[in-house]
C-alpha cells in the first residue's frame, strides 16, 4: 500500500475516534453540570476538560468567561479549534476523500454522509437545542462508520492501519478522560472544594463510567458500590473492557504485528513493553505511584508510539 494512503487512513481513523471521544467527554461534563453543585465546581469541570485537551490557551484567546455553553461551543463547532468535533469530522472526511479508492463505497459514503448531516445539524441549531442528543448522534455515527468498516473492508494492510489508529487514539483519549478530575482540582480523588462537592464526587466517577459506556459493566464486574480505585482499574487494566488502556494497547500491538516491516522492529518492542506493563500491572501499584503521574507518563509514551509508527510506515522514505 502507498505510504500516503496509509497516512490518510491512519488520520481518518484517528479523527473519527477523536470526535467520538470528545463527544463522550463533553457529555460527561454536560451531564455532571446538571447536578446541583457549586458554580466553582462546575467551572472546574470545564476547565479540566480544556486543560487535559491542552486547549486552555486557544480557548482564552476567544472567550473571557469559562462556562458550559462557551466551552461546548468551542469544543463542538469552533472552526479555529482543530480538536473541535466539526474539525475532527471534517478532517476525517477529507482524509477519507483523499483515499476513497482504498475504502469500500459504504465506508466512504458513511463518512461523507456524517459530514453532510453535520452541516444540516449545525445549520438547524440542533446542537444548541439539545446537546445531549447531539453527542449521542456523534457517537452513533462513529459506531456506524466503525461497524461499516469492519463489516465491509478486506482485512488487508489498509484495514490494519485503520484499526491500529483507532486503538491508538482511544488509548490516548481514555487516559485523558481519567485524568480530567485531576486537572480540575489538582488532586486525584477527594479534593473537591466543599463537603457537598465531595459527596458529588461519586457522581463524577459515575459520569466517567457512563461516558465510556462502562456503568453497567462496572456493576457486572464488581457487583459493588462505585469506588474510584475500581473505576481506574476497570478503565486501565481490564483486558476485556473495550475502551480500557489495556484493551486499546492490545489492539495496537495486534495490528502492528500484522503490519511489521523491516524498519518497525523497535516500534513493536516499544508497544509490546507498554502493553506488558498493563497486562501485569496492579491497581494498588498505580495508585501508590499516583494516578495522575501514571497517566501523564502513559500519554507521553502513547505520543512517542504514534511518532514511531509515522516514521516506520507513513513518512515517504
Amino acid at each position, binding site marked *: *500500500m*502507498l*505510504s*500516503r*494512503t*496509509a497516512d490518510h487512513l491512519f488520520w481518518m481513523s484517528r479523527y473519527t475516534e477523536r470526535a467520538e471521544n470528545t463527544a463522550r467527554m463533553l457529555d460527561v461534563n454536560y451531564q455532571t453540570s446538571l447536578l446541583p453543585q457549586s458554580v466553582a465546581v462546575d467551572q472546574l469541570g470545564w476547565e479540566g476538560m480544556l486543560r487535559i485537551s491542552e486547549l486552555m490557551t486557544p480557548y482564552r484567546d476567544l472567550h473571557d468567561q469559562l462556562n458550559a455553553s462557551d466551552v461546548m461551543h468551542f469544543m463542538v463547532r469552533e472552526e479555529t479549534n482543530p480538536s473541535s468535533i466539526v474539525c475532527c469530522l471534517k478532517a476525517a472526511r*477529507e482524509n477519507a*476523500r*483523499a*483515499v*476513497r*479508492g482504498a475504502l469500500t*463505497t459504504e465506508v*466512504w*459514503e458513511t463518512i*461523507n*454522509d456524517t459530514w*453532510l448531516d453535520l*452541516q444540516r445539524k449545525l445549520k438547524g441549531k440542533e446542537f444548541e437545542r439539545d446537546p445531549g442528543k447531539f453527542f449521542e448522534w456523534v457517537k452513533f455515527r462513529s459506531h456506524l462508520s466503525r461497524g461499516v468498516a469492519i463489516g465491509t473492508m478486506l482485512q488487508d*494492510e489498509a484495514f490494519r*492501519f485503520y484499526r491500529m489508529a483507532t486503538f491508538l487514539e482511544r488509548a490516548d483519549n481514555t487516559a485523558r478522560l481519567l485524568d480530567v478530575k485531576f486537572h480540575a482540582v489538582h488532586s486525584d480523588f477527594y479534593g473537591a472544594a466543599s463537603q457537598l462537592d465531595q459527596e458529588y464526587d461519586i457522581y463524577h466517577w459515575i459520569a466517567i463510567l457512563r461516558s465510556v459506556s462502562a456503568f453497567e459493566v462496572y456493576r457486572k464486574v464488581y457487583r459493588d458500590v462505585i469506588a474510584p480505585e475500581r473505576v481506574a482499574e476497570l478503565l486501565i487494566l481490564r483486558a476485556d473492557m473495550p475502551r480500557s488502556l489495556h484493551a486499546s494497547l492490545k489492539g495496537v500491538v495486534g495490528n502492528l504485528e500484522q*503490519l511489521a*516491516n*523491516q524498519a518497525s522492529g523497535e516500534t513493536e518492542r516499544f508497544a509490546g513493553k507498554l502493553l506488558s506493563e498493563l497486562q501485569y500491572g496492579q491497581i494498588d501499584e498505580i495508585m501508590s505511584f499516583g494516578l495522575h503521574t501514571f497517566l501523564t507518563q502513559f500519554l507521553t509514551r502513547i505520543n512517542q508510539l504514534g511518532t514511531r509508527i509515522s516514521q516506520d*510506515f*507513513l513518512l*515517504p*522514505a
Partner: protein
Amino acid sequence: MTRHSFDEMYAAPEQVREHYKKYAAWLAQQPPDIMAARKEEAEMIFRRVGITFAVYGDKDEEGAGTERLIPFDLIPRVIPADEWTVMEQGLAQRVTALNRFLHDIYHDQEILNAGLVPREQIEGNVQFRKEMLGVDVPGGVYSHIAGVDIVRAPVPGGQGEAQYYVLEDNLRVPSGVSYMLEDRKMMMRLFPSLFTQNRVAPVAHYPDLLLETLRAVSPAHTASPTVVVLTPGMYNSAYFEHAFLAQQMGVELVEGQDLFVKDGFVYMRTTRGPQRVDVIYRRVDDDFLDPSVFRSDSALGCAGLLDVYRKGNVTLCNAIGTGVADDKSIYPYVPKMIEFYLGEKPILHNVPTFMGRNPQDLKYILANLRDLVVKEVHGAGGYGMLVGPASTQAQIEDFRQAVLAKPDGYIAQPTLSLSTCPTYVKNGIAPRHIDLRPFVLSGKTVQTVPGGLTRVALKEGSLVVNSSQGGGTKDTWVLEP
C-alpha cells in the same frame, strides 16, 4: 436559434421520433411530482456518494467548500443503433488516423514532407514536444484514451437536414467518463422499469476495457504490469473521476509525491518499501509531469520521469505531446490525415473551419464576426471563445482586435445550432442544446463503449455545455435493435 435546431426527440411538435416513442409514452404517464421527487433523490445520492467537482475560487451552496454537483437531467439522450454503428466506425477511423499522425510527426514526418500539413504549424506549436522525437511508444499508440466531442446540427446551406459533426478531438487527458457511468447507474436506480422496457446497451464495463487497454501497452519488460492512476490530488476538479477509475480498476491512485525514479525505473513509495510502476494513466498535463524537464515549479509530477519514459521503461497514457494533434489549429487537417494514412474517406464530418492564418479566411472571419464562433486555437473548456450571434457589439470589437493582433491564434466556424433534447427546467420540460463525448480506447484494438457523455447547456439558448460554465449531463442510451 432554437427554432432551427434539430430536436433529438421531436421531428415536429407532437411528433415523436421513432426511437424515442417508447420513452415518450412512458414519460407522459409519469406524474410531475414523482419526477420532481426523483430529481431530488438523485441530487441527494450524488452528494452522498461525493460525485462532485471543484470550481476554482468558488464556494458551494453550503458556503463550506468548493464542491459542486454537476446537474443531472432525468431525460436520457437516445441514439438509435444504426446511427451509433456509423459513429463508432467513424470514431475508430478518426482516432486511428490521429495516432498515426502523432507517430508520424515524431518520426519521419511524412505528412509534413508531403506538404499536407504546413511544417510551421507543427514545429511552432507549443504542444509539439521535441523530447518525443524518435521515441517509440508501445504499439505506436499515443492517445490511448480519447474523448471526441460530437454535435448534431443542420447542414449549413442545406434544407434543414442535420448531421453529426466532430467539434473537437480531446487527446490529452479527456475527462467526464465517470459521469457517463454514474449517470447510467443513477438512471437504473431511479427508473429500473425503463431498462426492462428498452434495450439499452450497457456501459458499465468501461473500467475493464480501460484496464485492458492500459495493460496492453505496458513496457516489454514485464508480463504482469503494475498500473497506476496519477492524479494532481484531491483539490483537482476531476479528482472524483481519478479516484473512481482507480478504484473501479483496482489499481493505486498515486500523486507525484508518491513516485520516484531510481536506476532507470519509476517506483512508488509503499508501506513495504518501493514498488516498480509500469503503466501510468496520468491525469496530469504534460507541463507538470516532470519538473526536471518541463515546469520546474510543478509539485504534481515526478523528477526524471521523462527519461525513464524515453527509455521505454514506463508507459504514459496518454503519451507526452498528444496536444499537438487536438489543437484547434490542427483540427482542420484531420480529414486529410484520414485519407493520407488510411486511404479512406472520413466517416465523421468536420465543421467547416476558417483559419486566421490564411489571409483569405481572415478576411471572411473579420467580415462575419457576428455570425461566427471564433475560438482561440489553444483555448479549452469554453474559455477564449466568441459566439458571435450571442455577443454584444463591444465583445465582438474586443475579439476583432484580438484576432487582428494575432491572426494565426484563431479559427472560426459557422455558429452551429446544436441539436436539442427535452430537459427538465424550472417550469417543466423545455428543449436545451446538447453535445456528446464518446470515449475511444486504443490499445491492441480500438474500442468504444456505446454512447458516451451527453452534456446539456441548461441556460435557454446557450450553446456552451461545459460543466465549468453551468452545463449539466444526461444519461446516453444507445438502443439495441
